[in-house]
């Protein structure tokens, strides 16, 4: 995998994970290209695009577009499953996750992603283990959150 981007229907970036080293300028250009290309797609098109030598897999969940770029030998159908798994993890953590959760808790979205993927590869295929690791790490934080989900959006730094 080369990169994972999350952006809204208006093209606002909500998360960016780069799996290879790139300059800031290149990153900005890619973000622009991806948002333009994906947002221009018609409603019932297939979820795959060809862009340069990469395959772009995108899927819309509510108001967020998840956009994953993989190399040519990777499996696009599985990439859809990877995106879905990430959404499931977010959903389990936040409880009925919505875009606002990811906006206000972007650092948590990154932490969860970093327990699921690393260096462009999947590091853990079990949902429960990923969730348990995140919860355990959260417990270590000196600034505690309460367990109530709705407070997750408020407390913190």
């Amino acid at each position, binding site marked *: 995998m080369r990169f994972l981007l999350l952006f809204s229907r208006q093209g606002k*970036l909500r998360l960016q994970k780069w799996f290879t080293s790139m300059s800031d300028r290149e990153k900005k250009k890619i973000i622009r290209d991806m948002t333009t290309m994906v947002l221009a797609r018609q409603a019932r098109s*297939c979820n795959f695009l060809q862009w340069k030598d990469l395959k772009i897999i995108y899927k819309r969940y509510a108001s967020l577009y998840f956009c994953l770029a993989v190399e040519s030998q990777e499996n696009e159908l599985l990439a859809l499953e990877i995106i879905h798994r990430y959404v499931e993890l977010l959903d389990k953590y936040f409880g009925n996750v919505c875009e606002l959760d990811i906006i206000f808790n972007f650092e948590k979205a990154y932490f969860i992603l970093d327990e699921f993927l690393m260096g462009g590869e999947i590091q*853990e*295929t079990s949902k429960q283990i990923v969730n348990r690791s995140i919860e355990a790490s959260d417990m270590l934080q000196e600034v505690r959150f309460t367990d109530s989900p709705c407070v997750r959006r408020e407390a913190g730094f």
Partner: protein
Amino acid sequence: MPAPIRLRELIRTIRTARTQAEEREMIQKECAAIRSSFREEDNTYRCRNVAKLLYMHMLGYPAHFGQLECLKLIASQKFTDKRIGYLGAMLLLDERQDVHLLMTNCIKNDLNHSTQYVQGLALCTLGCMGSSEMCRDLAGEVEKLLKTSNSYLRKKVTLCAVHVIRKVPELMEMFLPATKNLLSEKNHGVLHTSVVLLTEMCERSPDMLAHFRKLVPQLVRILKNLIMSGYSPEHDVSGISDPFLQVRILRLLRILGKGDDDSSEAMNDILAQVATNTETSKNVGNAILYETVLTIMDIKSESGLRVLAINILGRFLLNNDKNIRYVALTSLLKTVQTDHNAVQRHRSTIVDCLKDLDVSIKRRAMELSFALVNGNNIRGMMKELLYFLDSCDPEFKADCASGVFLAAEKYAPSKRWHIDTIMRVLTTAGSYVRDDSVPNLIQLITNSVEMHAYTVQRLYKALLDDISQQPLVQVASWCIGEYGDLLVSGQCEEEEPIQVTEDEVLDVLEGLLVSNLSTPVTRGYALTAIMKLSTRFTSVNRIKKVVSIYGSSIDVELQQRAVEYNALFKKYDHMRNGFHLSLLMIINFRFFVVLSSFKMVQVCLSCLCVVPILQANDLLDLLGGNDVVPVIQNTVSTKPASAGGELLDLLGDLSLSGIPPMTAYNKNGLKIDFTFERANPNPNIAVITIHASNSTEADMTDFVFQAAVPKTFQLQLLSPSSNVVPALNQGTVTQVIRVLNPQKQQLRMRIKLTYTHKGSAVQDLAEVNNFPPQSWQ
């Protein structure tokens, strides 16, 4: 100093901004506050400030002044600080700036931390963005950690090792010992990352690949267990156990089985099992099937298995899910070369996909359709493809038109069908046809001698309907100029001949000249066509008038042509009729086909004026008249041909000199032919024209031809027509060589060819010894 505002508070505030300017103002204010807070070395709120900075960075604002703060957070003892610090490092730092190296020591310490979650943070950062220097420094630590029995850490270290190998491939050997019992793990996370590590090593080193082939039985067993095992809540996805691991194992099996009979055989059964037993109702099952198909096609599988794989793809084509159809088309495109017949069986389904609404699917279907065209199905396929061309989006038209021309050229069942197909493309997608097709089409039409009348009639009718599509207009103009006599005489065998007068034809051509829709190139074609008709039509006066009007045209090209044509009328009128029709035809034809550029057409036209004089001796035989001779001989010396040498060579192509052409070089798809003529008046000079053509599928660019001859000869190499030899014989590069051979020795030549082909530079030397004796005797 009040506490800096909380992260969520800032986010909420920024989101209330109604304009970009308002947002920018808020950000600037907050950045200033953060900067002064950093200056005060405030430990308590550093974490909060960096978090805010990361948010602003995501909105697109610069945040580099927080880089050092991230490093300080990483060095802190608090877990919250480390968490944000490492995240900040991954977002703000990158290996291009030396400051990232400051992380190395912190990471080293944290790799040995007592808390596994801290170790995890360090491993994650190293494994995501570690530079080569960092990887080199810390490879030892990573290798040490690989021995851990802690599965949480093991999977992270393994991926870290993969990253190290990607950054510093020489360190791969270091991790070999740790791979000893890699697959005996039960933990899926560790197993998955281990398979990734093995894959990375096998892809990079053939030795490693050979070494790990022995793991095939173990991998097969693991895969079997995954399929046969019952429901496992931890890894289940829609009834399938750990699809991510299954796919990864299939991919590794693909690499191990490729080119190896034994391994391929060992995995035959399991592949068949997966192919037949996997549930296909959901995407996840199809993802596994897809990977299985890819593996079957890549290894040395038995034919039964291959047919099974292609049939799976055929079923995919009928699936309601667009993604699956797309993936099937992509895979079939990959296999169409090797398993052509099997893919042909699904041709009708593939052709149906041309009508799909999805753009990505249409494109794949188009590419695959062209790959499936052969002599047997050409008529049916072309019908579908032409229908597609009519209705597809503009983005496809150019590629589709080119594909149609190529397929028609290869498999046309008859000349008439070929011409009809070309006509159809020109009339429906005429504006999208590539520029180089025009000369190719002209060449094709010229070669189909018996179809000339039919072709010119159809083209004329097409012009009456529509003059906006330039390639169509150009080809039509050329044909009318060439075969206008056939048009007016109403001789058409293939279809009902139309009644058209010379004036009507000239009306159409003049209409092209004045129309706003015509490009300058088209106008040039039209004017030349009108001129050529002066030897075919009787209404010469009208043509003279048109030509003289354009003698003062604003367009320089048109003006020059018109002036030269005028000269032909005035000075060489007596020769104009006798001027062998075929000379005009071939000169025009050669230039349009071979050189296709305005400048050379100009040269050609100058030649039209000069050539009659210089080649008078030869022509006289055709004319049978002698009175002209003295006049012409006197003017030989006073008429400097602007491009004398090359011009002579044109006529030389007609083999007026009688020396047969030869093939000097033919290798790797590059063919170089030599044609000869004697330069008048010096019989010791052999004028050789090289014609370079390219039968491969990629253009040869930066083409340079050099030649050397023995000492007794002198060589002059004139400039080439171009330095790109187009693919698939779509055109040739010509260049003139003049060889002075005063001692009449046997001509030998050494040639050197350099060009770029498919991205790599090619160079070749060759001796040319097979010159026909007439060229030097």
